């Protein structure tokens, strides 16, 4: 874990304004806690070329402390990496260049509420699940929420593109945000709207590289009074895609559509360990709304089911699958470890992609599981995972080349990586067009010309993550893996 020498750390601590010293620490043990996220790559890949160990950790209690910190950081030219729950896996909120780790979890106030509009003001560190629970008490609901709601913060979710359950009906979180409080590099506190300069949109999905989001005003929906859950089994992914496209071809959209494909050579992969016993390829359809809306949706899907002669799974399985919506991580228990890739995939390419993954799984002798949920009429948030063992370093390193292969398969079908952070910087051109990349660079130049906020990510990656060098390394690993596989030295 590369870091700054002890003396320098002490000097930095000493130079903090008194009001920040109370909420800061230079404890090595504390700083270690922020050198990773869900990703486990840090152990052997992050050493000299990355400075993941922050020099200080600051845990502000209010926006004034955030502003004071950014003012101090600008004066001392110290990098600042903002962090919510740290529940992503691309190092979006892990320092790449040391400096200050700004832990925003204590900015977790909920309210005031406006029950007429209805809307609520929340601190960026508010846990999404808790916000939803508070909204429910008032007869309200978030329009959308992520599968990581029990841990994710609202600020973190906003910074990472805010898609989730309900996005099919309501769009991304961007549609729900009416006002945003941001602290800019230098310490200026700005209130943004969709029309302001800079506007809310600039910060949405910016992964904490343009400013520190401290509070959001969110539009809310009435709490649904009715819900229904259905699930269908399919013999192949092509059938599933055809049915899926039919269900969204009309004025009424379900609240959510989740699909799973966990087959290898047509046989279901049983190790996926879903609590409900489900077939290898299935689609869950969820409805929320008032009783009439839900009934209309159910009737329409029932009609489609008859038309497609589908096998409908028992109601309890569909309900159990929805009840477990926050627990995709249970896959880990079948581990020992998991690796994978998350992308935004055009809906009409899901079938081709899954078939491509099937070929990859067969060729690499690695069972793979693909699942995702539909986020718009055009796209789905798709995750593909496979099992590995991070305790076996060589095997794990070779398996990393398969992550690259999954991404390459996805890009072939027009998918975009879901998030950039540090590890996806080689795929930047797939995430954004050339003009989008230029615009993002211009915004960074304007809002953070000294590169204080979350440096070393996206547009300025370390050398080993420059696309050419990274691509060559992955090709080498892939070839090496294939050779070892032929020699029977790679485990599935």
């Amino acid at each position: 874990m590369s870091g700054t020498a002890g003396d320098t750390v002490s000097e930095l601590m000493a130079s903090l304004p008194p009001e920040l010293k109370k909420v800061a620490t230079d404890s090595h043990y504390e700083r270690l806690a922020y050198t990773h996220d869900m990703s486990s790559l840090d152990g052997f890949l992050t050493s000299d070329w990355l400075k993941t160990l922050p020099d200080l950790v600051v845990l502000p209690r209010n926006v004034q402390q955030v502003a004071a910190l950014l003012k101090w950081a600008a004066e001392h030219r110290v990098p600042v990496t903002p962090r919510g729950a740290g529940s992503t896996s691309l190092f979006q909120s892990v320092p790449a260049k040391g400096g200050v780790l700004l832990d925003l979890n204590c900015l977790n106030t909920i309210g005031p509420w406006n029950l007429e509009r209805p809307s609520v003001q929340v601190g960026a560190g508010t846990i999404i699940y808790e916000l939803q629970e508070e909204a429910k008490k008032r007869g309200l609901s978030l329009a959308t929420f992520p599968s990581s709601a029990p841990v994710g913060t609202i600020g973190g979710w906003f910074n990472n593109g805010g898609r989730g359950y309900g996005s099919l009906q309501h769009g991304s979180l961007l549609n729900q945000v009416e006002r945003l409080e941001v602290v800019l590099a230098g310490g200026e506190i700005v209130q943004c709207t969709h029309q302001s300069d800079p506007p809310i949109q600039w910060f949405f999905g910016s992964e904490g590289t343009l400013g520190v989001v401290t509070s959001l005003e969110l539009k809310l929906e009435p709490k649904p009074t009715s819900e229904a859950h259905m699930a269908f089994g399919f013999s192949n992914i092509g059938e599933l895609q055809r049915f899926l496209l039919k269900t969204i071809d009309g004025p009424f959209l379900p609240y959510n559509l989740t699909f799973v494909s966990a087959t290898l050579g047509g046989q279901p992969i049983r190790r996926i360990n879903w609590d409900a016993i489900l077939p290898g390829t299935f689609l869950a359809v969820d409805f929320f709304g008032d009783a009439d809306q839900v009934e209309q949706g159910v009737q329409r899907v029932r009609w489609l089911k008859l038309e497609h002669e589908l096998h409908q799974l028992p109601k309890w399985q569909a309900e159990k699958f929805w009840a477990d919506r926050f627990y995709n991580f249970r896959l880990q228990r079948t581990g020992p470890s998991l690796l994978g890739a998350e992308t935004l995939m055009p809906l009409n390419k899901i079938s081709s992609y899954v078939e491509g993954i099937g070929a990859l799984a067969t060729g690499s002798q690695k069972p793979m599981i693909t699942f995702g949920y539909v986020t718009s009429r055009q796209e789905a948030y798709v995750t593909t995972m496979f099992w590995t063992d991070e305790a076996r370093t060589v095997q794990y390193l070779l398996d990393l080349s398969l992550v690259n292969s999954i991404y390459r398969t996805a890009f072939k079908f027009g998918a975009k990586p879901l998030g950039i952070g540090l590890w996806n910087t080689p795929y930047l051109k797939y995430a954004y067009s050339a003009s989008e990349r230029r615009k993002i660079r211009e915004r960074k130049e304007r809002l953070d010309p000294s590169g204080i906020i979350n440096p070393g990510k996206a547009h300025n990656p370390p050398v080993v993550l420059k696309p050419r060098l990274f691509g060559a390394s992955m090709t080498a690993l892939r070839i090496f893996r294939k050779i070892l596989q032929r020699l029977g030295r790679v485990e599935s």
Partner: protein
Amino acid sequence: MGVEKDFSFGKLHSEAFSCIQCGYCRRVCPVYRALGWESTSPRNKVYQLQNLLSTYPPLANLPEEFSQRFWQCTNCRRCTQVCPTHLDLMNLWQGVKHHLGKKGYEPASLRSTRERVKRNKNIFSLANENRSFWAMPLQGYPKVLKPENPDIAVFVGCVASFYPLVSGIPLALANVFLKAGVKAYFLGADEHCCGNPLTTAGDLATAEILAENNISKVRELGVDKLVFICPSCQSTWLEEYPRYNKGQLPFRLLHYTEYLADLVDQGGLDLKPYPRRVSYHDSCDLGRHLGIYEAPRRILRAIPELEFVELANHHQDSLCCGAGGNLYMVDQKLANKISQPRLDQIEESGIDTLVTACAECRQVFTLGLQDRKSPVRVLDIAELVAELIREG
């Protein structure tokens, strides 16, 4: 003798590396929520453990904070409850504390508690012969505590035996049993500490000696039920004692609320009305650990005119009082901080009376509400029943 749980480095390694670092445990961990630093979260404890288990020898050169953070735990089991990969985090914490204790990395307060237990057979600096001083106001004391041919034996636990603020609990229960005609045998000086502070710190040899005494004293009575006041003692008996006994114990282990609830159902308790708004606090040990949620509620519902309301978090989602896992002993300030959200809920609920079934919770809430000058009355269920029971 084979009393070791599997706390081998191999087992700890396999559990620790099954953690995906998702952080679901952060939201529910009372210590993390009170302190806010990532290092206090269960997720980080596992992360640091992964690092220290990857060195050779494992768990060598432990940073002081590592040990400190592991002891800052109330054993509330919320982390285990929400873990999406179903890690038995409680077992992991216990395993790490076992190694920490063996290496001498334990808080001074726990070390001195262990020494007191070895010396006095209880967690206090008091002679064990005084275990039944709480019963002095009982008519017929001390003979009344040791009936011939008892129906049940009662294990009071150190806290309720010696701590003045909660010594009314065994007194109340003894009165209830007398009025209900139950021949309850209180072990008194024959009762030794259940061994929880010792097993927690890895001193299984001494814990075994205490356990053997306790098992033999109850066995001598020939009863088929051992009734507990302290859920933590009951957990220790349930989890640890069958191994010391080399098999199942020859009597049932019951919490006193279960026994009283059965008496209520059988019409064995005639209770006066209590026209108040009352709520019940599910303790971590009695609820999440022992799974006893309904027995206390059955008793309360049997009280005429009592208006029962649930607190905002109840049953398996109940909040920790802050005192569990010996934290009150290790870091009282932190324990008090942890209790604040629950105290807020109690005050916001609009109740007159809060009822508990754990001496430690009773103690924390009594002091916490006194500090807030709250009018809410705090009672153990045994105390409430003793107040309302009519002569049989």
